[in-house]
């Protein structure tokens, strides 16, 4: 390991920055290098991606019926004016 290499403990805190593309080029290189050298961190990165996929499958909450009723009522009033 070179002195500038990331530790696993540092790697796990950079995942969202990496996925958002906000790491500076030098750090991004160290991140990618670490992922290819370290099976544990490669797994962690993959699990982070899987977490994001699973979160994306949640159905956004439906509108609460009471709110919907009031909205429809307001909409009717608005159309009538």
């Amino acid at each position, binding site marked *: 390991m070179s002195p500038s290499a990331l530790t696993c403990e540092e790697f*796990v805190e950079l995942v969202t920055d990496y996925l958002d593309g906000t790491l500076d080029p030098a750090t991004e290189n160290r991140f990618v290098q670490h992922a290819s050298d370290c099976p544990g961190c490669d797994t962690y990165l993959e699990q982070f991606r899987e977490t994001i996929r699973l979160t994306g499958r949640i159905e956004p909450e439906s509108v609460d019926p009471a709110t919907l009723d009031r909205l429809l009522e307001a909409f009717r009033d608005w159309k009538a004016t």
Partner: protein
Amino acid sequence: MMTRVARTHVSTDASAEEVVQETWLGVLRGIDTFEGRSSLRTWTFRILTNIAKSRGVREWRAVPMSSLGDEPTVDPDRFRGPEDEYPGGWKVFPVAWPSPEEAAVSADTSARVSRMIADLPERQRLVIGLRDVHGFSSAEVCELLGLTPANQRVLLHRARAAVRAGLEVQYAEGSSR
């Protein structure tokens, strides 16, 4: 989600619901002036934010990083100590999860993820909800919630790491049964 975003700007649930209601009216009235420069959804949330702020007593600002929590997102005990040959390395690698097909990603998993998100601190819940559930961009979330890009990423990262950790526990329990 709209009520929650509104709730960050105003002081009561009832007030937040009124803001949402006003927002829809604003959307209906303003739809003719919508020029398609942003998505309809972003435009709607922008109206919401403006209405909420105009009546809000509480406004989000860039919060100091320290108040976001600076503790690690993975238990430090999972890494080797400073005296070790590989300080900061995993003691034991995370166990790979079953592939999505094997896990038969069930309604059950989605329900668990929903509950994990519901249990997060408010700001983390909003950011992960907007980014990962609703698919807003980073820039949109920063604008809607009045966060700096760095703070938005910190909140998102903490939220995602908490959900990942919850899933890890769930998969570990599943495999030991």
